[in-house]
């Protein structure tokens, strides 16, 4: 399959691994930002193949993981309403609130549907004028353009029975929060390829200068990741704090201007709570005042719902690269994919779920 097979070529992967071994002279800690990258690293066992001196820590780039529990509680409350058709990407359905998840709401009679695009949700609103259609708009800069487009289209067509729960987050403020933490160990980043496809990589250039470290936008296939790690190691070894784009087939410096304009039309920057991490200033997107009638949390008056996390869950430390999933005392004991204590164990792209699925503790790899 074109654009897949060549990036999964074992011979090329071996060459890159040899080159990484040759270039590495000391211990380096590199964070891959995106949950999709974490998933691919664990699935392909890339961490097992790297020299011991290269430590990969897993970043906060899993949208399901960082969606705050109170957004989920509010979604559950709205989804249970009789007049509502609740639509969401599949991943979100299994994320537990304090007592149930969206699957359970569905089993209790809620009309909860998986959609593949927010525009599909808008279409459901068009053909069900007697129902309120709500879409759970979660994600990073990758999902923001399509989510913005759905709201924009709804407004343009005057569709009033459509609204969104917005839990949009952005990568650069999270990077800064990680780097500013006194416990930070990250020395270089693999930036999330698909976020960069939308936003470009120019916005990382000030971060490299401010924190004096390299940032390498990289893809998701094994060869992409190994090439990204090799480039990061080269930059680290040479002491170069630069952005070097290794996902050239998808990412440009400026990114996708049309997508960025769409985001800017509908959303504005806001402070946002990240599940497990806390409030990161200027790290989220919210609907502009002109589109506030599409805000489901206001429409259904659920903004009073607040909630807390399980005290056993250490997902905040995991999401900031301070704790390896299998070093958490609850990992694979109180916390499993069948009974997750936090969202990093729920999402297929969460670091804890990836460790559980592919590398369970005590298993001799």
């Amino acid at each position, binding site marked *: 399959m074109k654009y897949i097979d060549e990036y999964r070529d074992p011979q090329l992967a071996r060459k890159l691994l040899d080159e990484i071994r040759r270039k590495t002279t000391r211990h380096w800690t590199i964070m891959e930002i995106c949950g999709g990258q974490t998933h691919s690293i664990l699935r392909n*066992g*890339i961490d*097992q193949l790297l020299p011991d001196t290269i430590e990969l820590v897993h970043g906060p780039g899993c949208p399901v993981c960082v969606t705050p529990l109170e957004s989920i509680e509010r979604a559950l409350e709205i989804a249970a309403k009789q007049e509502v058709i609740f639509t969401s990407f599949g*991943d979100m359905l299994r994320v537990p609130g304090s007592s149930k998840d969206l699957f359970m709401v569905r089993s209790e009679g809620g009309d909860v549907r998986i959609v*593949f695009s927010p525009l599909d949700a808008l279409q459901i609103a068009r053909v069900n004028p007697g129902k309120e259609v709500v879409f759970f708009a979660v994600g990073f800069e990758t999902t923001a353009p399509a989510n913005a487009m759905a709201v924009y289209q709804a407004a343009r067509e005057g569709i009033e029975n459509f609204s969104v729960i917005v839990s949009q987050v952005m990568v650069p403020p999270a990077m800064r929060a990680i780097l500013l933490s006194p416990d930070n160990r990250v020395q270089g980043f693999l930036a999330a390829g698909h976020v960069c496809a939308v936003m470009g990589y120019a916005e990382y250039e000030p971060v490299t200068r401010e924190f004096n470290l390299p940032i390498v936008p990289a893809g998701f296939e094994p060869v992409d990741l190994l090439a990204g790690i090799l480039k990061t190691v080269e930059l680290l070894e040479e002491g170069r704090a630069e952005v070097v784009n290794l996902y050239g087939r998808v990412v440009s410096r400026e990114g996708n201007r049309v997508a960025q304009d769409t985001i800017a039309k509908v959303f504005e920057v806001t402070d946002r709570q990240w599940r497990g991490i806390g409030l990161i200033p200027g790290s989220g997107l919210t609907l502009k005042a002109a589109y506030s009638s599409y805000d489901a949390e206001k429409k259904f008056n659920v903004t009073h719902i607040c909630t807390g996390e399980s005290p056993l869950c250490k997902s905040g430390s995991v999401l900031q690269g301070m704790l390896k999933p299998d070093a958490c005392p609850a990992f694979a004991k109180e916390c499993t*994919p069948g009974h997750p204590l936090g969202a990093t164990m729920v999402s297929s792209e969460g670091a804890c779920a990836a460790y559980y*699925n592919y590398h369970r503790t005590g298993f001799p790899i």
Partner: protein
Amino acid sequence: MTITPLCPSPILQHETVQMAHGAGGRLSQTLMQRVFMPHLHNVFLDILDDQAKLDLPAGRTAYSTDTYVVSPVFFPGGNIGELAVNGTVNDLAVGGAKPMYLSAGFVLEEGFSLVELETIVISMAEAARKAGVMIVTGDTKVVGKGQCDKIFINTSGIGSVMDGVNLSCRNLQPGDTMILSGTVGDHGMAIMTSREGLSFQSKITSDCAALNSMIAAVLEVVPAIHAMRDPTRGGVAAALNELAASSSVGIEINEPSIPVKPDVRGACELLGIDPLHVANEGKLVLAVSSEYTETVLEVLRSFEHGRDAVTIGEVVDDHPGMVVMRTAFGSRRIIDLPLGEQLPRIC
């Protein structure tokens, strides 16, 4: 114009299933006579007793049941009717039995198209004929609109276990070869890509097929095969995990050896789904002592539904109950049971 006054008589010709079709009266009879009997009739069914009286061969008898609720009812490569016949035929066959007789129970939703029902019944008759089994007893119920999704079918089946064959999921031995009869994920992805709401087109068709003649042929030549599974729901991953757990052995498989059609792989990549977790309806996983590997592959490959048969791995002493994949890069990862419903990822 002259109109002859007539007492209104009940309508007996309908285009859709009515509650009265399940009420045991005239309309029930009409349904039997017009839709079911013309296609399914045989010496047992024609008697129309409440039961079939069967003469079974001496020796052990296998008995299995399964219920089919697939949506959509018609999918690329098949429909719920042939799935219901082939599924139960395969469940009997992977136990080393020669499938002989099936029952068929239908739950119909009020308003379901009678033309579609007849198409399904014709498919069942054709599937039964191909598999060499007879549908010897049946039942039909109708439920109100919205109380089921168009049509649910239960089939159960009886088969006679072949002499000298002892297949069980507890029989795996370290050193056994794991063999897979063909590509994985075809059925599940055919269903998923044909569901409403998924706006991409594909040419993926279900692998729905009866495997009993291929299984009988391979057991004829190598009766010492240790275990067989048809990897339906949960896919090959679930089948292998069940075998490993039941026999308290480990299974190691090689990633590059797993055959996946390019279209299926593409759809799985897009949706973020592992093809090993996707359902198959015409595939076989088996464990056999390594000295028989080539013989088994040769027999399987002589059949249409086994022509892509391959060795995918082996049974090991290590990590009992666990399935481990060796990746193309030389690393290893656990292949776990899928957790519930397959969920497309966000990005």
